[in-house]
């Protein structure tokens, strides 16, 4: 079956603009995660959705970052008033059973803020 997909694959924006990144998880996976991977750094957890529960937002770096998940499937990560330090690869992952099953990652969205 299809894996996790993300769009766009690349996004170049100007400082101060808002951006939206999209993630389509594997069908039937109840858990969805967003991570950020900066050059030379490990993957950094951002936010986690599990079914209809309130999301775990503990990893969001500032209130400029937000995410939603509609209908328990597609998720959108929004970054408002982008800054140059937001430049990174944003990765989405999904899993069938959180904390037990492995997470499957999408190809990522490379965000460049000029």
């Amino acid at each position, binding site marked *: 079956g299809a894996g*996790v997909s993300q769009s766009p694959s690349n996004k170049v924006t100007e400082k101060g603009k808002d951006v939206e990144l999209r993630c389509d998880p594997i069908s039937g996976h109840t858990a969805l995660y967003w991570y950020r991977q900066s050059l030379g750094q490990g993957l950094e957890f951002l936010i986690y959705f599990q079914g209809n529960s309130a999301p775990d937002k503990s990893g969001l770096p500032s209130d400029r970052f937000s995410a939603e998940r509609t209908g328990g499937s597609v998720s959108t990560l929004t970054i408002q008033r982008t800054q140059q330090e937001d430049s990174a690869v944003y990765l989405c992952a999904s899993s069938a059973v959180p904390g037990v099953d492995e997470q499957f990652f999408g190809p990522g969205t490379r965000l460049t803020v000029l």
Partner: protein
Amino acid sequence: EDQVTQSPEALRLQEGESSSLNCSYTVSGLRGLFWYRQDPGKGPEFLFTLYSAGEEKEKERLKATLTKKESFLHITAPKPEDSATYLCAVDDYGGSQGNLIFGKGTKLSVKP
């Protein structure tokens, strides 16, 4: 203090030259330790999950082992196609479920 430390940062091997990658971790309680492979421009690809000390898993030329403080990824007779960055991650009972803590990875290059 880093909870997951991988070493070495980079490793260059000749084809057929076996070696090991290390992942040291500090957690309140280990829910699971994960190994991923990441190729340039792609998302991480799942390799193994280990849950308890003494556990071992194998896949082709790769073998992952786990102790209470560290995990090793052994690569036997590597081939150039094994070149990639290998990532280690832990799921800590002290954190939120499923929130993986990643190391910075080991970049492996295998020369023919």
